[in-house]
């Protein structure tokens, strides 16, 4: 079960992911990101501080946007991940492909730098 809250701050979309992302709930994550992109967001922050678990399907969602974001010049930064969660990203090698920061401040800074 996952719950995704979306709020906008200074032209940045912030998606707060709460709960666990497994095969079935990964669809919600996909929809939430697609919605942000569809509404023209170019700076997306994903707040993973309340993300307890992510399965390979959930990782697949982040992965699937990498190329699209590069082509459309959209920047996404993930932040606040728990050790266990960041570990799954690292094992898969996804940590090298995504922008991941420890906290919101750093994430914001990075996304602003990238968008310049």
């Amino acid at each position: 079960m996952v719950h995704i809250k979306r709020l906008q701050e200074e032209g940045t979309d912030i998606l707060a992911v709460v709960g666990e992302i497994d095969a079935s709930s990964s669809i919600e994550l996909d929809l939430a990101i697609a919605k942000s992109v569809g509404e023209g967001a170019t700076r997306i922050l994903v707040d993973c501080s309340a993300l307890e678990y992510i399965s390979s399907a959930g990782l697949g969602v982040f992965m699937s946007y990498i190329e699209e974001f590069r082509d459309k010049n959209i920047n996404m930064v993930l932040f606040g991940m728990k050790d266990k969660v960041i570990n799954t990203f690292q094992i898969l090698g996804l940590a090298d492909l995504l922008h991941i920061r420890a906290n919101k401040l750093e994430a914001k800074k990075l996304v602003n730098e990238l968008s310049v």
Partner: protein
Amino acid sequence: MGAAVTWLVMVFSDVTVMFSNMKGLTPDVPMWLPRVMLDLYVICLFYYYKFKIERDESLNFTDLLWRVFATGLVATVFSLSLRMVDFLLGSTRLASNIFFIDVEYLINLGLLMSFLVAAGTCWKRLILYQKSKWLIRGWVVFEVILLIVLLSDNIQIVLEEWVIITGRVLICILALVLSANMKWVAYLNFKQKWTSLLLLLLSFFYLGYFFYTVNKFSDDIGNQLKDLAGTVNPEDAAAFLDFGAHAFNIYLFSFVMLYSIFSFLVILFNLPTSSVFEQKLEEVVNFQRISQSVQTEQSEESVYKILLESSVSSVFADAAWLEMKGEHKEATLQTYHISERDARKIQEHLGARHVKGILDQSSDKTKNLSDQLATLKGNRFRSIMAFPVLVKGEKIGTLALLKELPEGFNKEMTQIVSAFANQAGISIENFRLLKEAIQNERYKEELKIAKTVQKSLLPDKLEKSDDFDISAFSESADEVGGDYYDTLRINDHQVSLIIADVSGKGTTAAFHMSQMKGIFHSLSQQAPEPKDFMVRANQALRYCLERGSFISATYFVVDSSKQIIYYSRAGHCPVLIYKAAEKKADYLVDKGTALGMIKGKDYCNFVETNTISYATGDVMVLFTDGITEAKSPKGEEFGLELLKKTIVDSVEESPKAIQEKLIKRLYEYTGTEEIDDDYTTMIVKFK
């Protein structure tokens, strides 16, 4: 047969008794014989008809009446032909001979009794058509009383006046009560009612005719006897079988007559309302057709058709249409006596005039729309009634009925059509549920196939080597997973190993797994460096994997000549190595991105070849995330640390034993036999 024999005996004995009487002699046969024989004759007839009519299940109401009529007809024709003989004989001696008259009389009596008993049996079936406990009891009492009357006629017991009167009253009341059971009349249709009336009328005629004939004969005989044997005492004069003197005959005759009259009148008065009953019956039948259409493997279309037909015939609508949205939201319009164009016109017209509650299904009220419809040019309809067809509370269609008369629909019609629409909704819902169930079943079947495919993709035998022992295990959850392991000998000193996990589950996972197997078997034969293997595998897979799927894998080449393992990890779980020399196990730290995550050429920057050496007693453990992510009942994961500890504890044993201990430990940890992911391990122990 029995009846015929008793009748013959009756005839002879009666004639003998009479003869003896006349001569003033004591007859050879007992005086009571004719009466007893009559009783036996009646009882035989009773059983004959009981078996012939009562047990015959195939008879319907008009058939029963027809039986009565036919019996009457045969009897009457027979009797009339006797009269003819009588007439031909004219006034010869034979014709006026008392014995001849007596025989004639007895034949007529036999025929009448036969007719009466036949009619009585038929009436019984009609009366008991809708049985109740009390009705059956009443009938049994009635039959018993008749039997008593029949028998008591023989024994000339002189009863008190009041007893006889009470008995008569009792019989009359019973007969009246029983005759009030006319429920069968309601089930006759219009045509059958007319037929029944005619049959009953003719039966009256037979009854009248026989009554007259038999009475006349008995009077004749009585008179002649009196004339001939004035000396004979009056009691003996009554010795011959007088129909009128037999109480049973009178009662039976009266009962048959009474019920016939009742039936006649009831049918007559039911004639005007019979169309209503027929209508109701038809409604019930239509109702059944709709509700049974699911069982008879019909389609949704046939439900629509039945709904339209039944509704039209129930309310005598002049035209109707049924607009349905199918499962895939496509709208279809079925019409009855109205063109699709006209139907659309009316819909548009009502829509334009903002008539609420008719076609928008928010309410099911019938409204007088004659004003509205009158304003539509070229439209002959003056009333309209519409109903929503609902499936799970969602409107899937509209049924509209039209009449040329203004205010042509009444409340009952509204109710019945509403019931039809509801039933159709239920039937359609059932159809869809059934379809869904079949789909689910098919899906399950597919999963089963996928699981078999997945199992068959895993190797039966692992490559053997003088340098190491190897053991592998894979157990998947109900849903098919995508875990894969394999081994392949490259040359005499090199063996390649692979462990992989396809993201996702089900048939697609099994499909990707088979792709991975193909890649492994074709690429590793060319003995590539592990990094090259991954880069080429990624290239091969990048267009095969759909968006969001990837494969994590670790590829090894074990070189026994150098005692070195070359490996490349692409996003898979880290490798656990136990060094026998240090008595210590560790996870290898390296980098590598899963296959399919990067479609471009720069994937080569995200994988690397790593090298480790091995020595005797070293153990290498490969696994998939199903093992480390296995959860205890509290929700805690098995984790890398516990895995390491479990391996170290049993590291001295054979790979097979290490593996068995690990799996046992894993099941203990989760506390259940059911797993919700795939457990896959491959354990290599070096010699």
